[in-house]
């Protein structure tokens, strides 16, 4: 069980004090190797018996597409972008991450509020403002900051995706030379990350090392955050918050146990967690409306 804490006032109507899952954040600038590590960690955790949900920026059903589209046009202003990303995160938090945490998943997120704060601050937003915007967000169990310096970063970016318009700060930096902008933007971003790392107590991982080395460091650090034994995933909790569960009669409880047995069986059979991920996506929407209805019933 992890105690629920928010950065600020939290989500309206959210009552649970604990969530059985773990929220683990990987932070770091573009090209540092976050997604590679997440893929490795996911496979490792699943083979150890944990159910894993991986998520990242712009992957919400609500705002993901709209945000990507807005970025394509390059007409997105700084404050608009900040709040669009906040909308995307809020939707993923409410509809993907919290339901998964409730069900006992390990949630691996590729960037979290910190990257979004850093981007906003570098683009001139006051720190206090962007921090208060994220008052609704859940505090994670651990933040691993993959730290790199510019000389090591540039070859990696060049050999993977190349320089990106937004990741070079072309939207607000003067001049039209992408390389110069990239250097300037990433230097500012890295120093902002350093400040945030202090304030929020990131665990710093030296990302200049090889993929395998970084992976084993992360494994060692993540083990400390995980429960000793992988919890049995509560499929029921995926589709309903606890208030709704409490109303179930014994018959449903029995069938839920049946579900869990099937899940364990499925795991034994080597069937991967993909099914459950789909279940998260499908049931998360339902969960939101069912949750509200359940609350309403309670009141009347």
């Amino acid at each position: 069980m992890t105690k629920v804490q928010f950065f600020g006032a939290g989500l309206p109507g959210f009552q649970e004090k604990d969530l059985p899952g773990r929220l683990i954040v990987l932070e770091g600038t573009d090209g540092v190797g976050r997604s590679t590590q997440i893929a490795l960690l996911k496979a490792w955790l699943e083979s150890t018996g944990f159910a894993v949900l991986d998520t990242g920026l712009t992957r919400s059903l609500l705002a993901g597409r709209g945000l990507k589209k807005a970025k394509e046009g390059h007409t997105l202003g700084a404050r608009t972008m900040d709040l669009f990303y906040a909308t995307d995160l809020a939707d993923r938090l409410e509809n993907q991450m919290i339901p998964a945490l409730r069900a006992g998943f390990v949630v691996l997120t590729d960037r979290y509020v910190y990257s979004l704060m850093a981007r906003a601050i570098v683009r001139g937003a006051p720190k206090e403002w962007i921090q208060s915007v994220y008052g609704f967000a859940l505090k994670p169990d651990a933040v691993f900051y993959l730290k790199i310096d510019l000389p090591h970063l540039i070859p990696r970016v060049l050999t993977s995706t190349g320089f990106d318009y937004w990741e070079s700060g072309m939207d607000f930096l003067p001049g039209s030379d992408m390389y110069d902008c990239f250097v300037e933007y990433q230097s500012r971003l890295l120093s902002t990350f350093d400040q945030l790392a202090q304030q929020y107590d990131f665990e710093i991982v030296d990302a200049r090392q090889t993929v395998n080395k970084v992976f084993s460091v992360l494994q060692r650090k993540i083990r400390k955050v995980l429960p000793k034994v992988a919890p049995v995933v509560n499929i029921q909790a995926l589709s309903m918050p606890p208030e709704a569960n409490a109303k179930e009669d014994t018959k449903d409880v029995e069938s839920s146990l049946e579900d869990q047995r099937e899940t364990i069986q499925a795991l034994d059979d080597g069937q991967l967690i993909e099914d459950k991920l789909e279940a998260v996506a499908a049931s998360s929407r339902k969960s939101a409306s069912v949750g509200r209805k359940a609350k309403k019933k309670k009141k009347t």
Partner: protein
Amino acid sequence: MQAGLDTRFPGKLFIVEGIDGSGKSTQLDLLYKWLIAEGYCVFFSAWNSSPLVKKTTKLGKETRTLSPTTFSLIHATDFADRTEREIIPPLKAGAVVLADRYVYTAFARDSVRGNDREWIRKVYGFAVPPTIGFYFRVPLETALERILAGRPELKYYEAGLDMGWSDDPYESFRIFQGKILEEYEQLVKEYNLTVIDATLPITEQQYIVRSLVKPHLKNVLRDPQFHRRRRWLTDWLSVRQAGK
């Protein structure tokens, strides 16, 4: 207010607030027409109209997947886009900007939806404070009569059905508007909004609005052709009359 955007400009910003059926849009439209006729450069910004954000808001509303938090944030995103594109640039140029609904709409609605009051105010910290914020005060029953007389189809979020107060859209709408009205009354005090009695005849309200706006128009940007064109028009009229 603050959030990294400069908010001191030569232009003037007039905004209207009030519950649905208070007649605020009618009044703003009349003000708009008058300002244009007087040759002022006027820019109009409507609530929830950013083309960048529209599709996302529409998606959320149609699929009914907006929570109180995402409802609030997506409207703040819309507002940020309009602030950056439609509100600040004309104000910098010295023009008049008119806004139908402003941050106070968000403060009222989002609080009723259970969001933290302090949080909402901080999120909108980047907003430009208006020159005058008009609040059209109307009794709940009068506004409901105006809106519900034709039994219009009320939309899900418009009626506040997401809050589960009632399954009947009309009943839910009544409850929602009543709660918003209470919030507005607090906001009038908190932000010193200019209250207009929205039960007065339309022309009378407009007279008051114009007389309050006028003193602020001295240095506002005007169409340089305006005076010449007006002179031409008066000349033309007098020639025509003489010809009769």
